[in-house]
C-alpha cells in the first residue's frame, strides 16, 4: 500500500457512492446510471471508469487480473495492474481462472467466467446511439421510451448497402429485452459471451460519468434480423502458437516483406493451451 491514500485509492465515501450506482445498474440491467465520476491519476480514455468500478468492488482478498486487447502484458494493462498492486496491495494474476476480479479493455477472455468472478469493462462511449444522435438529453429520452428504431434502421441500411452489418466491434446489444447497450469496443466475436454469462458484468465510463451492469445469467442479444442473423467474425486461420481455431486472433506482421501470422489475442488462453 502507498502512504497517504486510502485502500484502492478512492476514499470510502466515494466508493460507497460508486457501489450505489453499481447496485442501481444491476437492478436495471443495461441502463446507464449517472455517477459522480472522480478525477483519477490516470488520464480519461485510459480506463478511469473501469478503475473506479474496480476500486469500489475490490477487497483485500481479491485477486486481480487486468487485460488490454486480451493481453496481460500490454503497457496499459501493466500500468493499471501496478496501480492496484500499489494502492490496494492486492494479489494480481495473469491467469483468468485464478482471478476474482478481471478488468478488461476491448476483450472478454476465451474461457467462460464463473459465478464467483466479476468482469469490469472499460467503456469509452457508453451511449450506443451516440453516432446516430449526439445529444445525451435526446438519447436519454429514447432509452426511456425504448425508442430504438434508428439503430435498427442503421443496421438495415448496412445490409442494403453491403449485404451484411458493417459494425465489427462495439456491436449494440439488447439487455434483458429492454435496454439497448454498448458492450464497449469488444469485437463482435465476443458478443455471444455476454449472453447469460455466469459472472457479474460491470461497465464503467469515467469521462462520460456512467456505470451500467449485466447481472449473472441475464439474456443479452446482439441486434439482428430474422433473415440476417447476427454473425460474429474471426480471421479464417488457427493460432500459430497453440493451434486454436476457435479463439479470436491477432494478425501479426513478422517481417518487412509482409509475412503474417495469426496468434491468440487472449495471451493467457494461448499460454494455457501450450502448457505454460
Amino acid at each position, binding site marked *: 500500500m502507498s502512504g497517504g491514500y486510502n485502500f484502492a485509492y478512492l476514499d470510502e465515501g466515494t466508493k460507497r457512492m460508486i457501489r450505489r450506482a453499481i447496485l442501481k445498474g444491476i437492478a436495471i440491467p443495461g441502463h446507464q446510471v449517472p455517477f*459522480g465520476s472522480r478525477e483519477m491519476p490516470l488520464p480519461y480514455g485510459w480506463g478511469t471508469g473501469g478503475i473506479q468500478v474496480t476500486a469500489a468492488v475490490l477487497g483485500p482478498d481479491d485477486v486481480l487480473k487486468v487485460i488490454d486487447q486480451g493481453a496481460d502484458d500490454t*503497457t496499459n494493462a501493466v500500468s493499471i495492474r501496478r496501480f492496484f498492486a500499489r494502492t490496494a496491495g492486492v494479489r494480481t494474476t495473469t491467469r483468468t481462472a485464478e482471478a476474482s476480479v478481471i478488468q478488461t479493455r476491448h476483450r472478454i477472455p476465451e474461457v467462460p467466467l464463473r459465478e464467483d468472478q466479476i468482469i469490469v469493462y472499460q467503456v469509452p462511449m457508453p451511449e450506443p446511439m451516440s453516432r446516430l444522435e449526439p445529444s445525451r438529453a435526446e438519447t436519454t429520452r429514447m432509452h426511456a421510451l425504448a425508442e430504438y428504431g434508428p439503430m435498427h434502421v442503421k443496421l438495415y441500411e448496412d445490409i442494403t448497402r453491403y449485404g451484411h452489418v458493417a459494425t465489427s*466491434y462495439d456491436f449494440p446489444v439488447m439487455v434483458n429485452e429492454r435496454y439497448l447497450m454498448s458492450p464497449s469496443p469488444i469485437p463482435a466475436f465476443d458478443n455471444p459471451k455476454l449472453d447469460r454469462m455466469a459472472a457479474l458484468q460491470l461497465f464503467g465510463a469515467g*469521462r462520460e460519468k456512467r456505470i451500467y451492469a449485466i447481472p449473472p445469467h441475464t439474456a443479452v442479444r446482439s441486434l439482428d434480423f430474422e433473415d440476417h442473423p447476427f454473425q460474429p467474425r474471426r480471421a479464417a486461420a488457427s493460432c500459430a502458437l497453440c493451434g486454436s481455431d476457435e479463439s479470436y486472433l491477432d494478425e501479426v506482421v513478422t517481417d518487412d516483406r509482409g509475412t503474417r501470422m495469426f*496468434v491468440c489475442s487472449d495471451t493467457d488462453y494461448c499460454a494455457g493451451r501450450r502448457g505454460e
Partner: protein
Amino acid sequence: MAYVAVKGGERAIDAAHAWLAHERRGDPAVPALEVEQIEQQLGRAVDRVMGEGSLYDRSLAALAIRQAQGDLIEAAFLIRAYRTTLPRFGTAEPVETATMAVRRRVSAIFKDLPGGQVLGPTTDYTHRLLDFEAGGEPAVPGEAEAGGATMPPAFAILGDEGLVEPDPVETAAPTDLTREPLAFPAGRDARLQALARGDEGFLLAMGYSTQRGWGGTHPFVGEMRVGSCAVMLEPPELGFALDIGDVALTECQMVNQFGGSKAAPPQFTRGYGLCFGHAERRAMGMALVDRALRAEELGEDAGAAAQNVEFVLSHCDNVEATGFVEHLKLPHYVDFQSELETIREMRRDAMRVAKAAE
C-alpha cells in the same frame, strides 16, 4: 518463425519513465528550476493551472508546472488528480467581489467612473518587442504602485434605472460538477462552474465565434476587475463566518443588448466570468460564452455552437478532452483486426460484383 508473444510491457514502462525523468531535468549543468521561481516569475501560467485544475494553491500549481515540463494541461491534470483526493470540510460563502482589493479595474462603457479606471499590471499597452538586452534578463523594475483600494461595481451606476438585469437570486446550494455528473438541462450554476474550469483556448474560441456572427451577443465590457477577495467560511459549530484567507480573482461583467421579450422589457443582459488569479482572456471568454448559453432562456435563436449548452459543456474540459483524444494512442488492434476482416469481406463482395459485371 520469428514471433513470440510480445512481452516486456513492464520493462518498457520503467525505461520510458526513466527517460522522461532525464528529459524533464534537461542538461544537469544548467541549474534546476526552483518551484518558487515558477510561482513568482511565471504567474500567469500558475493562474491558468489553478483555474483549470480547480484548486487555489500557487505553490502546488508551480510544482505541477515543473513536473509537467511546462505543459499546462498536463499540470492542470496533476492538480485535479490531487484535488480529487482532498476531503471537503465545508462550503465557503459566495465571495463578495464588490469588496475586492482592486489592483486593476477597467470599464469600457464609461469614460470615467467612481474609483477611476485603474490599469494595474496590464500588458494591454505594451509593445510586443522581444527584450534582447542583458541576455533576455529584464532589469529589476522600480517600485510598483501599491493598489488594493476597494471600488464600487460599475453596474451600481446603471442599477437604479433598471437598465441592466439584476443579479439573479440563488438560494439553492449550487451544483458541484466535481461530485455530481453533468446533467441536461444544466442550470446556470453548473454552466458557470464548467466554464470556470474549462479550457482557456476553448472559451476564447467559442467567445470569439459569437463575435463573428455565430450566435451574436453584442457585448461590452461593463467591468473587468482584478484583485483579491476574502473567503469567508462558517463552521457549523460556530454560528458566524471566519475569514480563512484571500484569493486572487479576475471578474468580468459583460453587458449585452437585449430587445426584450413577453416576460421582460428591453434591458441590458449580462454574461459573467470569474476565475482564479489574473486571467482576463479567460474571464472574458467565459462571460461571452455564459451569455451565449442563455440564448434559449432569453427566447433568442439558439442555433450556433456557442449557444448549445450540451455542446459547450460536454467539450470545454481539457482534461477530459485531452484524455479521450490521446487515448487513441493506446492499442486498438483487436478492434482494428475485426475491421480488417469486415473490409476484406466487403472488398471480396465488391470484386465479385465487378467481375460479374464484366
